[in-house]
Structure formats: structure tokens, C-alpha cells
């Protein structure tokens, strides 16, 4: 579909385009403008606000279970007043502890760092940065959000059922998750979890297909693939990863639903539980893990790539320097995407999988470190001899790099099966993925929000609050997760409710308390961001310059408050790559993509 047809429907597409573009002549009703909107910019905000809501819920859960871990002998009467039965006498019950960590993982991995992150930035940036009036299919795009919303509703309801939400970990391995007898959380809570996740997969697929087709088909004149900003490349591969791997997860869930409700034995075999031998024979519990991690590993890159793209863009803009090694950056994204499909079994080294197969996965896993290293060195070279402006967005992008290094390096331990044999499912893994994926991806997201907030709302967020937010969060993140490596090396298992009965692990009690205190501080610090975000929407300093950061990319050529359709008049044409941060001949230090090449100037 042409860009015009998308905004106005086919019947007006052949009218005088210039007259119809951009500003709406007829005032849309509130519902169509802000709720069932098909404007990618509104959908992006919907994803963002829903993501922020879920982030608060998910982080709050961690606050509660960290209290249990830090202070296993204390009681917190206020907990009983909000959790009731689950925290009798102010002491969290083990069942609910497991429910909380499960929902914490599910919410943050899927609802915040997948939907909240890709949903926000793919929607906002793809059309704006490639020069399109909207997504290839604005309608499917709207559906994608509403499927996400429906999925959120199911997940939220599951928090309130009597037997509690799912409690088998965010990976929900059967047989634990398949048998109602095995745990309270494997009852209705698990059904709701599966329904929620199935809807979530649909939402991701609708979104992802849309992002892919938009990037491939809707680029403005002159916007060749090699002129795309790295954000778009990254969001594009994120979508590719999702589209190819989510269906596999879906099939895994379907089989699980069958095993739970229809007496099949895909994952079940030779089980005696609750005083009774079950009739299931011949299934394989490991099959689920293959299906899960076939998505699960790409999923971690689904979470990581948008941050990589945004960090690349933000670092280049604020270094007033082109990103170093653009092509290498693209190639490393491609290799990460390919390899991400070939390493899933590194989560399963100790499941009894054939050791030979294990060694293949060791090789492929450590191979991923190479493109990751290339990216890091390229970011470092980008800031080398730059002219660095430390906006809050820039700080978060730099923090992203620092955290990605720290977390990526521990992946090298885990990817080597001979080392994983001791580290698997200990706090070392928790430290690894929280730093590299949890915090680092959050930093990418914060960087994106601080950077593109002016584009979203026509106002700035408050810088001082941004700086406070940054320094407390990065210091806190390292204080929380760095010591966890030590606990993991000492063999301390993850997902334990209480360590005090263990001779080998109880010496970490005071450390756990320390971590919990820092976690609480970091949790409350995030409200500085939340308040800054919402207050700035209405009260922030107004934008006067449509291109406040002096960036080359197309989104800053739109009006300060772009209407549906983004550009008034023609969509600008692109003449150069996205990183011409150099002397423009008139004292400026950048040349927008829309400026034709000068005499004698070579295309990049």
C-alpha cells in the first residue's frame, strides 16, 4: 500500500495528496484518536505506558521477595494487609514466593522488555526514521497492541486467583507446570499464564510482521538499506527473531496445554506423585525445554537488540561523530541474529543431553561473543575523539555499554559447558542475565525514552532528575548484581526461599540483606523517573527547535507535534547515510539525511 492510502484509506488516496497529508481536517473522536488509534505514534505510547505499568508491578514483586531473602527471620505486617493469606503473620509463604519470582520474570522479560521495549520503539521509530507515514498495516498494528492488552488482562487476573499465579519459574518447565498436584501455582494460575502467553505470542507476531514489512517496503525515496540508522537495523532483526522463534514457543505451549487438560503425554513419563502413579508414559520433559529455549535464547536478543540499536544511535548523536564501522555493526547484528537460533541448548547442558551435542553448542555459543565484542569495540571507537555531550540519554547509552560488557563476559563462563556444570542454576546465572539483559536492556530503554521523549510529546524531560536517576541506578545495579557472582561461584542455587538451613550458603545472609536494601533503594529511585516522565508530558519544558539534539535522521524533520501521517507535504527524500556528523560548511557539525550531497562529496 502506498503511504497515502494508509492514512486516508484508498478512497482518498488519489485525491490531491498534498492537501490531505498530515493534519486531519475532521476532528477525530477521542476514542479513535487515543484508544483504538491506528497512528503508530499513539500505539507506541500505549505500549510504553502499559510497559511502565508492568515494570512497576514486576519490580514491586522483586521488592517483596527480596525482603524475604534479605530478612528471612523478620515479619512484615503490612505484607499481610496486601497479600492476605499469602503472607500470614507478615511472613511470605513459600508458594507465593515462587509465584512472585515466576511472575517477576514473566512480566519483566515479556511484558516490559519485549512488548514494552520493541512495541514502543519499533512503533515510534520505524516509520519516522525510514520516512513512512505509518506502518504497512496500521490496523494490524492496532490489533497487536490490543492482543497485548488482552494478554496483560489474563496475566493480571492470574495474580488474584485463589491458588495463586503460576509458580514454576518464568521458564515453566513441565512436569512441575503440567501437573496440578505438583504445586499450587500449577492450577488455574498456570492456565491463565498459558492463555496470557498465547495471546502475547499473537501480539508479537502481528507486530513483528508489520515491522518487517514496513522496513522492507515503505522506505522513502533514497533511503537504501545501507542508509538506515542502526536503530532500524536492530529493530528489524528483533522482529525477525521474534517472528521465527515465537511460533516454536507457541507450539511448546500448545503441547503443554494438551498435557495439562487432555491427557496427552508429550512431556510426561513415569511419574508418581501424590501417592499415585500417573498413566503417562513415553513423553519427554526435555522436549519442552528445547521448544522453550528455541525461543528463549533468541528472546534474550529480542530484548537486547533494540537497546543496541538505540545506544548506537544515541552515542553517535551525542559524540557528534559517525558510528564507527557502520557496516561491521550491521554484519554483527546479522551474525548475532543467525547465531541466536543456534545456541539454545546452552541452557540445557546438564539435562543429560548428549555431551557431543553439548560441545557443538559450546562452540556456537562462544562464537556469539565475537560479534558482541565487535560491537563493544566499535562503540568505544565511536566515543574516541568525539565531542561528548552528556545528556541523560547519552549517560544511559554509555551505561548500557558498560553493563553489556560486564554481563557479556560472564556469558563466556556459562557458555563453556565444562564451567556451566557447576554454575548452572546458581546466582551466577542470575547475576549474568540481570546485568546483561535486565539492567542493560533497561538502560537502552531509558536512553531511548530520554532521547525521543521530545519527539513523542513535544517537551523535554527534566535533566537533573535524569542525572540523579542514572547515577543511583547504575551504582545500585552493580552493587546488587556484582556480589551475586560470588554467591553463584560458591554454588548458591537460585530460586531458593530461604538459605538458613544450608551450611554451605548461610554465610551469605548478611550479603543478601545488603543486596535487598540496595534493591529497595533502586526500586524507589525509579519513581524519580516515573514522576519525571508523567509530569513532563504536561509540564515539561517545551520544545522550540524541532531538532533539539542536532541529529541527522528523519524523525527530526517532522513538525514538533506531528499529526497522523508525520510530515506535512511531501515525505522528505534521503540523499546520504544517517551518520554524517561532520562540518556542514556553514559552521554546523552535522548534515541531515535530507541534504543532497555537495559537489565532490562522496556517498558513504
Amino acid at each position, binding site marked *: 500500500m502506498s503511504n497515502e492510502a494508509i492514512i486516508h484509506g484508498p478512497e482518498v488516496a488519489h485525491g490531491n495528496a498534498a492537501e490531505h497529508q498530515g493534519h486531519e481536517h475532521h476532528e477525530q473522536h477521542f476514542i479513535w484518536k487515543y484508544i483504538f488509534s491506528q497512528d503508530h505514534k499513539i500505539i507506541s505510547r500505549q505500549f510504553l505506558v502499559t510497559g511502565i505499568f508492568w515494570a512497576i508491578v514486576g519490580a514491586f514483586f522483586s521488592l517483596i521477595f527480596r525482603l524475604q531473602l534479605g530478612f528471612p527471620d523478620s515479619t512484615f505486617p503490612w505484607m499481610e494487609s496486601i497479600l492476605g493469606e499469602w503472607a500470614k503473620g507478615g511472613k511470605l509463604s513459600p508458594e507465593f514466593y515462587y509465584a512472585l519470582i515466576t511472575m517477576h520474570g514473566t512480566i519483566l522479560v515479556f511484558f516490559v522488555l519485549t512488548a514494552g521495549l520493541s512495541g514502543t520503539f519499533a512503533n515510534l521509530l520505524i516509520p519516522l526514521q525510514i520516512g513512512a507515514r505509518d506502518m504497512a498495516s496500521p490496523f494490524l498494528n492496532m490489533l497487536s497492541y490490543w492482543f497485548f492488552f488482552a494478554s496483560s488482562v489474563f496475566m493480571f487476573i492470574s495474580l488474584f486467583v485463589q491458588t495463586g499465579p503460576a509458580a514454576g519459574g518464568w521458564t515453566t518447565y513441565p512436569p512441575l507446570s503440567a501437573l496440578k498436584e505438583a504445586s499450587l501455582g500449577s492450577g488455574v494460575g498456570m492456565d491463565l499464564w498459558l492463555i496470557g502467553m498465547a495471546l502475547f505470542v499473537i501480539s508479537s507476531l502481528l507486530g513483528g510482521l508489520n515491522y518487517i514489512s514496513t522496513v522492507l517496503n515503505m522506505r522513502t525515496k533514497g533511503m537504501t538499506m545501507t542508509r538506515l540508522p542502526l536503530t532500524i537495523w536492530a529493530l528489524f532483526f528483533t522482529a525477525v527473531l521474534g517472528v521465527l522463534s515465537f511460533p516454536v514457543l507457541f507450539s511448546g505451549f500448545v503441547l503443554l496445554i494438551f498435557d495439562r487438560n487432555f491427557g496427552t503425554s508429550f512431556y510426561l513419563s*513415569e511419574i508418581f506423585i501424590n501417592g499415585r502413579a500417573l498413566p503417562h508414559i513415553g513423553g519427554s520433559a526435555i522436549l519442552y525445554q528445547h521448544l522453550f529455549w528455541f525461543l528463549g535464547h533468541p528472546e534474550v536478543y529480542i530484548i537486547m537488540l533494540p537497546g543496541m540499536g538505540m545506544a548506537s544511535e544515541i552515542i553517535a548523536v551525542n559524540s557528534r561523530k559517525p558510528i564507527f564501522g557502520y557496516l*561491521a555493526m550491521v554484519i554483527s547484528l546479522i551474525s548475532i541474529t543467525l547465531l541466536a537460533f543456534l545456541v539454545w541448548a546452552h541452557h540445557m547442558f546438564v539435562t*543429560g543431553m548428549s*555431551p557431543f551435542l553439548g560441545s557443538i553448542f559450546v562452540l556456537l555459543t562462544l562464537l556469539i561473543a565475537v560479534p558482541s565484542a565487535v560491537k563493544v569495540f566499535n562503540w568505544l571507537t565511536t*566515543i574516541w575523539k568525539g565531542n561528548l555531550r*552528556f545528556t541523560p540519554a547519552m549517560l544511559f547509552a554509555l551505561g548500557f555499554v558498560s553493563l553489556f560488557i560486564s554481563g557479556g563476559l560472564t556469558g563466556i563462563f556459562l557458555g563453556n559447558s565444562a564451567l556451566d556444570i557447576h554454575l548452572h542454576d546458581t546466582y551466577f546465572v542470575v547475576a549474568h542475565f540481570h546485568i546483561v539483559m535486565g539492567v542493560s536492556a533497561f538502560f537502552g530503554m531509558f536512553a531511548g525514552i530520554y532521547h525521543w521523549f521530545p519527539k513523542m510529546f513535544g517537551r523535554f524531560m*527534566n535533566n537533573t532528575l535524569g542525572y*540523579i536517576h542514572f*547515577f543511583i541506578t547504575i551504582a545500585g545495579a552493580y552493587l546488587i548484581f556484582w556480589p551475586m557472582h560470588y554467591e553463584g561461584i560458591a554454588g548458591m542455587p537460585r530460586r531458593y526461599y530461604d538459605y538458613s538451613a544450608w551450611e554451605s550458603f548461610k554465610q551469605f545472609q548478611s550479603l543478601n540483606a545488603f543486596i535487598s536494601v540496595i534493591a529497595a533503594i533502586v526500586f524507589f529511585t525509579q519513581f524519580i523517573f516515573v514522576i519525571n516522565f508523567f509530569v513532563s508530558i504536561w509540564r515539561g519544558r517545551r520544545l522550540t527547535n524541532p531538532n533539539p539534539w542536532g541529529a541527522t535522521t528523519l524523525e527530526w524533520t517532522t513538525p514538533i507535534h506531528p499529526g497522523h501521517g508525520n510530515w506535512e507535504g511531501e515525505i522528505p527524500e534521503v540523499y546520504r547515510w544517517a551518520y554524517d556528523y561532520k562540518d556542514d560548511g556553514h559552521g554546523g557539525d552535522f548534515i541531515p539525511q535530507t541534504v543532497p550531497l555537495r559537489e565532490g562529496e562522496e556517498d558513504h
Partner: protein
Amino acid sequence: MSGFITIALIFLVFIIIYQIAKASEYASVIRGEEKVKVQTNRTIAWLLVIFFLLGLWGIWKCHMLLQDKMLPVSASVQGVQYDLMFKATLWVTGVTFFITQTLLFWFCFKYQSTEKRTSFFFPHNNKLEVLWTTVPAIAMAALVAVGLKNWMAFTSEAPKDAMIVEVVGKQFNWLIRYPGQDGVLGKRDFRKIDDANNVLGLDWTDKDNMDDIIAQNGELHLVVNRPVKLIIGSRDVIHDVGLPHFRMKMDAVPGIMTTLWFTPQYTSTEMKKITGNENFVYEIACDQVCGKGHYSMRGTVIVQTQVEYDAWMLMQKSYYASTHESVAPAPGATAPKTDSVKAITMK
């Protein structure tokens, strides 16, 4: 009430912070934004450096504090190799960590924006890019080589003279089965399980079961310097036999038999001396979330000399004898002989 006051206080603090931040924004407009921008930039650059230096100090401090809380020397022969490889990897990653983070923060400081500075247009350089593709690739190849050598060794066939013990997980404890005098674990079938008198579902028509011994207290007795092969299984959901002191771990999966072998090199008593901890005990930790009691699914390993072990073994009653009181107990055992390994079928 006090909860309400706390929340109100927190709110108040937020409002104050917000107001101050807002005021600084207005002030910067009055004082001239450009000037303030330059100052802020310099302040932030300094803060980054301070953060970096404090971070390095913190890493050092953290290491000093936690060092003596770590695991003692490896209790298994294999673990010695493990620790060596861990150290090597730690060096490679540690040096990389230090170099890259230093560059990151140093560049931030050195190239902070000033009025005079312009950036250096440097879009790419093939030599550099090739360099930092190949160097990590070589480093990874080396780590993979070491890793696979160890992996092959850890997962190879257990030596012929290894003793055999079965470890079965259930919600929420470990059941340990010794093959008894004949050195052979008899057949078992999950349909024959009965919590009262046949916890593992031993098939009593298989005479290999008659002398098998089951410890329901989760105590795994091993002989020092004698390889042991664990036959691992689960009755209900997935568990995991985690042996941190031996640097080993293997899932217990229902319907599938997994194995793990290693050679203990210090008896429990020796380890008490090494650690200087009277209460030291080798623990088996369940490392795969398995339900509400996951955190309490604890077993212990008792590594003994052959003599101690034999004496202990002599006192054990076969499971058959202890559940079938009328039947005469199997004759007293001598040192169990485990040469013949019979594959265990579970059906």
C-alpha cells in the same frame, strides 16, 4: 498508620526533589543555557570518573570481603581441573573487563565536549575492525579448546572400578540406593512405588533388588579416592543433583536416566580440617525449581575411607529386609563389589 506516614514522607521527598530539579531548570534558562550546559557537562564527566574509581575500589573491597566465604578447595579430582579452567577464564575476561571499562570511562572524560573541541570524522577502519574480530575469535577458540577437553573428560564413561549409587529425587527429598553386595542395582518400575513399603518401586521379582539398600535420609556415603558413578532419576518433577563442593551437577528427570561421575579426594573429616569448620558438611542442593519445598531439598555427602565405609555398610539393612520383616535379612555384607555394571531399566 505508620505505613501511611512513611508513604506520605516518601511522597514529600519526591516532591521536594522534583521542585529542586525544576528550579534548576528555570535557573539555567536565566543564567544562559549554553553556559550551564558546559558546566553540567564538565560536572558529569567528573562524576563518571569518580564513579569508575569508586567502582574499582568497590570491586576490590567486595573481593576482600567475600573471598573467605567462597567454596574451599575442590573436593573432587575433576574439580581441580575445573578450578584451573575457571581461573584461566577469569584472567581472560578480567583483563578484557578492565581494559574496556577503563577505555569507556577514560574516553568519556578525555573527550567531553568543550567549546573548542570538534569531533574527528572517523567512520571506519578495516585494519582495526579485522583486528578486533580476530583477537576475540582466537581467544574464544582457546577457551573452547580447554573447555571441550575438560567437558569430554567430565562426561566420559566412568572408570570400570567406579562404585555405583542411585540418587532419586522426589518432592522434597533425596532417596539414595546402594546396589548392595552384588554391586548391581535391580530393576524398578514407577507403578510399583508405594510410599509405605516401596519408595522406589523396586521389582521384587528381580533378585538383584534383594540386597539393595535405600537411604531415605538423603545421606550419600562415598569412598575417598574411589570414582563414583551416580545414576540419577526422579519420581515426580525435574530436580537437579547439585554438588557444589565437587563442582558437579546433573538434572534428575522423570522418565530418563542421567549419570554423573567423579572422584572424591577429601574425606568429610579432612574437609573439616581444611575449612576449619567443625560443622562442615558436603551438601546436595536441588538446583532445579521443583515446587514449594525446593529450597529445603537437601541431601548430604559423607566421604569416608574405605574402612569406615565398609563398617558403615555392614550396619545397613537391605531395603527388602527392612520392609519384609518376616523374611530373613540378607547375609552380612563384605565390601561391596561393583565390577559388573548392569544397565538399569526403569520399566
